[in-house]
């Protein structure tokens, strides 16, 4: 297998910010991502669970495999964003096929 190393961003954000963050990813050159719904969680602000009330408070996970420069730009933006809003981002290395896609 011809594998090359790329960066994987895992971004946990509140539901209300999802499209905001997705727009940023597009702007910063991230070419693809997938979003997953969290069902519950806990953190510095206490615990939460998905429900029909309390709009916007549940967390989504955005997974984006991308190249190093785009990842760095997204991180810079997110650093700022997370100084106001809940959530976190983590970065790791992954091996992918078809490097040109990322």
């Amino acid at each position, binding site marked *: 297998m011809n594998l090359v190393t790329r960066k994987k961003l895992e971004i946990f954000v509140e539901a209300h910010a999802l499209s905001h963050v997705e727009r940023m990813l597009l702007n910063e050159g991230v070419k693809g991502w997938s979003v997953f719904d969290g069902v519950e969680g806990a953190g510095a602000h206490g615990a939460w669970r998905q429900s029909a009330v309390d*709009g916007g408070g549940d967390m989504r996970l955005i997974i984006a495999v991308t190249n190093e420069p785009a990842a760095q730009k997204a991180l810079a933006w997110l650093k700022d964003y997370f100084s106001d809003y809940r959530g976190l981002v983590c970065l790791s290395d992954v091996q992918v096929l078809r490097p040109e896609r990322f």
Partner: protein
Amino acid sequence: MDIFGSVGSAAAANLLTPAILFFVLGMVAGLLRSDLAIPEQVAKTLALYLMLCIGFKGGVEAHRAGLSSELLASGALGLALSFLTPFAAFALLRVISKLDRTTAAAVAAHYGSVSVVTFAAASEYLRGIGVEFSGHMAAVLALMETPAILAALLIVGGNASQGAHNPRRGALLREVLLNGAAVLLVGSFVIGAITGERGYDRLEMFVNPLFQGVLCLFLLDMGLVASRQLAMSPNLQFNLLAYALTWPLLAAAIATIASAQIGLSAGDTTLMAVLAASASYIAAPAAMRIALPRADAGVYLSLSLAITFPFNLLIGIPLYQAAADFMVR
């Protein structure tokens, strides 16, 4: 004595309807940490269904009644209550509690805004005891959702633009004016008002006989959510608790007097009081999370969802109705 007696027996009758008992069941199950749960997507749909019915039926009745001056007066009163009471609530909270400005403003926004389910339960209560009310109160409900949120932003003022994410203002405006619940409520009202009797004939079986059952299911879920919220906030300040139990009475009193003043019927007066007394737990938190992310969500959710909502549902509604009856008759 007579009044107290009748309020008491009305409250007791209210407590023994299926809808209220399902709420109690949810609370009990939640406190016992049962794994009973209405799946989230379904619960969200039940909420949308309630919106649709309330809006549509209100619209049909408004179509029947035509545009009356009463509608305008009710709407103006509702707007005023939603926009002005947050200032009073904020001032009160700052005096009696140690909440920071931002959280106090967020709480005030919740209490100025309204709870659709409390409104639905009150409507059913009135129907159950045979008190009439106007269809356009559904429009007043819709009108009262957002002014309180704007009031909170005014209160916080410059501080609202926390951090570097002011582009979020667009998101906020959209959230406030175009949140799903509000759009469906208003849209259904308009559809009801346009299609009138003909539309009602087609949807009657959908919006009427099911409503009670869906309300039961949703209240069951609310009971579960409220008790979970309660469990997550073990050390609420006593003063905040007192606020969550007395502010509704205050707001209801003001709304009742004002409604009587402008000549609303006993039924409409009751609903206006319910709207004023109820606190939002869907639209307002969503807006506050965007606009005031540093406000403590634990506080505003616990107060509105876990204290004020059950209080209004179990005790407030019959009380406000009795007061309206007394004032208007």
